[in-house]
């Protein structure tokens, strides 16, 4: 393992992310914050939603922002760079095993996802207050949960980015990301699906369920949620699975 090269690759991604910071910011936060404003503020004040909904919504919004950021940060550059431009080749020729380049992409994506998750909390809080009841009960548990969510999003980005063709990016978002978000217990707790027993079982295959439920358990434990241990175990499982799939796809794409 060549740490100098690894650090330089990470520095390159940080440099590019800094350069595109404003664009990344708008891309990441505009949609979730508009959602927060309409559902958490407009609908609550007009009486269509109960006031507690604000606190229920916030962990879900954090999960969406993190997953969207991680997937986007890893998948989009990979899709573009592996296809038409072949830009990634200069890094494939860097003196490091190519699987470490994939790991570097995952780490960079995780950092961006964590930043997105930690930034969206105060932004949403500002939009939703007063009457929002969230707090971190156990910082190490919260940190671990956040890291696992970030890992799932970045590893998912790696797996998707190395499997999707450039012409199918739109399809990836409408066929993968959108259903994942709507059936990911982001806007409602998993227990709310009790009256749809089959759907409630099916959504357990969706890793975002564990991200939303896990963050809900960390930030707003007053609402019903899946057991923290189950969330952590499921997220770890999906992290490893997506990383293994992603590394395999990356190697396939990288070498003809």
């Amino acid at each position, binding site marked *: 393992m060549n740490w100098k090269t690894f650090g330089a690759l990470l520095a390159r991604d940080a440099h590019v992310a800094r350069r595109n910071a404003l664009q990344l910011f708008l891309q990441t936060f505009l949609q979730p914050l508009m959602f927060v404003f309409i559902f958490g503020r407009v609908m609550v004040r007009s009486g269509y939603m109960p006031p507690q909904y604000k606190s229920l919504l916030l962990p879900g919004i954090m999960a969406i922002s993190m997953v969207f950021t991680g997937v986007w940060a890893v998948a989009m550059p990979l899709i573009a760079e592996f296809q038409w431009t*072949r*830009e990634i080749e*200069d890094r494939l*020729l860097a*003196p490091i095993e190519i699987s470490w380049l994939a790991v570097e992409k995952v780490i960079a994506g995780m950092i961006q996802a964590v930043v997105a998750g930690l930034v969206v909390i105060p932004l949403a809080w500002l939009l939703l207050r007063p009457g929002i009841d969230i707090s971190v009960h156990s910082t190490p548990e919260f940190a671990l949960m956040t890291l696992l969510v970030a890992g799932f999003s970045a590893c998912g980005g790696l797996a998707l980015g190395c499997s999707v063709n450039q012409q199918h990016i739109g399809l990836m978002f409408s066929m993968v990301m959108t259903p994942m978000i709507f059936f990911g217990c982001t806007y409602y707790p998993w227990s709310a699906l009790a009256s749809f027993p089959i759907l409630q079982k099916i959504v357990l295959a969706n890793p975002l369920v564990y991200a939303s439920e896990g963050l809900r358990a960390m930030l707003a434990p007053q609402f019903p949620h899946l057991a923290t241990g189950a969330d952590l175990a499921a997220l770890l499982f999906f992290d490893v699975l997506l990383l293994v799939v992603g590394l395999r796809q990356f190697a396939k794409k990288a070498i003809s």
Partner: protein
Amino acid sequence: MSIGIRIRDLRKTYHSAPPFAAGAGGFAPRGGKPAKQSKPQIVALDGLSLEVKSGEIFGLLGPNGAGKSTTVGVLTTRVRPDSGEVWIGDHDVWKQQVTVKRLIGVVPQRANLDFALTAREILIFHGAYFGLAAKERNQRAADLLEKFKLTDRADQMVRGFSGGMQQRLSIARAMMHDPQVLFLDEPSAGLDPQTRILLWNIIREYNQAGKTVLLTTHNMEEADALCQRLVIIDHGREIALGTPAELKAAIPGGFVLRLRFGNQTPDLLQRLQSLPGVREVKAADTTGADIYADRGGSLIPQIANLAVAVGVELHDVHISEPSLENLFLHHTGRSLRD
């Protein structure tokens, strides 16, 4: 320390369209029933063996699809061969990839610059990947930008660069970590004549510092001007190997006359063969003949008379002097540009 390259019995068949880096089109499909195959099999390398001596400028010459870029891909860890061995110096490329990557610099056929960075940043980050200290990489980047006449655009994003500028920057990037072996895949494609000469001088200068250079080209002039030795390949196999002078001397007679008739008969070919100075006659299609001879223009009157005598019309004559192009034609019956 300078190091060479060894290739032994290299084979590669693509089971889908070859990647862009391996060139496009012109591959020969294997087997007689391409329509029935759901996966096309494209043989890019068919048992190629080569030895490039340390410190030489070596050329791979061939038409599109000959296997040049695939060879470079295998040597630079980008294309995994089906079988065979490749060595850079004492290092097996596929067993010691990281060590090999430190020793080589690669200029791909089509520029693959990092579009998220400026020209200077591309060089500096490349230096950082190879572990150069900050001061050293800044200095080297500035020197290379100057050398390749890119200083005035150094701090602009490369997205807006012309093809020639991107190509120059690709070469500068490949030299950034001072590799022992430099691979250039069609380095002067798309360059204007002035830049081409600048590039040739830079390659020669790099080679004089004791570095090994392997370049691919389908440009005869470039191969002739730059390469100390070269191999001509077609369909992934070696056709001829030697210095440009040796290869040219191997063409029978030296001159090539490509003739086109109204129609061509065996009798005509036989009588052409008996003309004084003619070394070899090869039929080309149904109406043509390629004549390898000791002389060029002075044969024309005799050929014209002979055509009249046999009763066929002479439509077209093309005379060329000894060249690598003619050598390729002699071995394959095709022009390099076909």
